[in-house]
């Protein structure tokens, strides 16, 4: 036992029982119980994996589509205005090749750092 702090009614008289218990534990530790299909039986007993129904994904996509169309119909001017302003914002500012390279380098560095961090944590 790792924590021999048991109060006893006589250390000497407790010794022989400690020895008996320790010997028995050692004997059991040496007796490795062969698997004999135990793992297979356990794996068969595990609950079946819960798979989402096949219709869930297309249904979700259809719902998002309906929501987007609904929003566009409800606010016809806003959607067009947002698209036009976004295009103007990017078109008005010329982007150099160096800027594109810098953005790509920063994005690459960021994704590699995240990947290494995630790998180390796992």
């Amino acid at each position: 036992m790792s924590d021999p702090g048991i109060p006893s009614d006589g250390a000497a008289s407790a010794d022989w029982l400690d020895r008996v218990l320790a010997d028995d534990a050692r004997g059991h530790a040496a007796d490795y119980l062969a698997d004999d299909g135990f793992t297979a039986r356990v794996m068969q007993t595990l609950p079946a994996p819960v798979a989402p129904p096949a219709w869930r994904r297309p249904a979700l996509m259809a719902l998002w589509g309906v929501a987007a169309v609904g929003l566009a119909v409800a606010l016809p001017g806003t959607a067009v205005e947002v698209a036009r302003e976004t295009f103007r914002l990017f078109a008005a500012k010329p982007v150099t090749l160096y800027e594109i390279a810098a953005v790509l380098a920063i994005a690459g560095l960021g994704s590699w750092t995240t990947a290494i961090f995630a790998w180390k944590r796992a």
Partner: protein
Amino acid sequence: MSASPVTDAQLIARCVVGDDRHAFAELVRRHQSAVRACLRKLTTGDAALADDLAQETFVLAWRNLKSFRQDARFSTWLYRIATNCWLMHARKRKEELLGDRDDAIPDDDHDAMSHLTDTAVDHTRASTLRMDLERAMRVLSEPERAAIVQCYHNDLSHEEAAYVLGIPVGTVKTHVLRAKQKLKVAMASWNPEAASGTAEGAA
């Protein structure tokens, strides 16, 4: 170059994140012997019951793997589930016995005590000792037996045993002390001092 062995923590992560059943099978393979041996000790040698409880233990472990915080070793966590399974089973059995026949509960304690002195001569000393110890363990109450199994058989510290049994450390120590007192009485024939005393008396 030899591949480094996958740790329990890595296998658990695969189970939790990716629902990886192969990883769980590996965990079962690694720990089945220890869990089954622990339950055999708790059930005082009933191998079939121990294996049923071990199976239940691993199914419960799979279901609750997400709640395993890794603040204890995985094996210790498994011992905790196994001990709970055994305690639940023992409680259920006791209730059934009480419901069926109030006056006819087998008195295992006295039965076990009376058999302890009958050492079979055709057995080796080690196996006789093991059998006697198994019988003596029946004398103990369930919490006492659980405490002895965790502290000696599974070689856990009092703190770890307290975690497994879900009781304070002081209570574990009390259970171990009481269990050892009972075992000393039940196993008196194995006490070398008593044996030498008897021999001197006879001479």
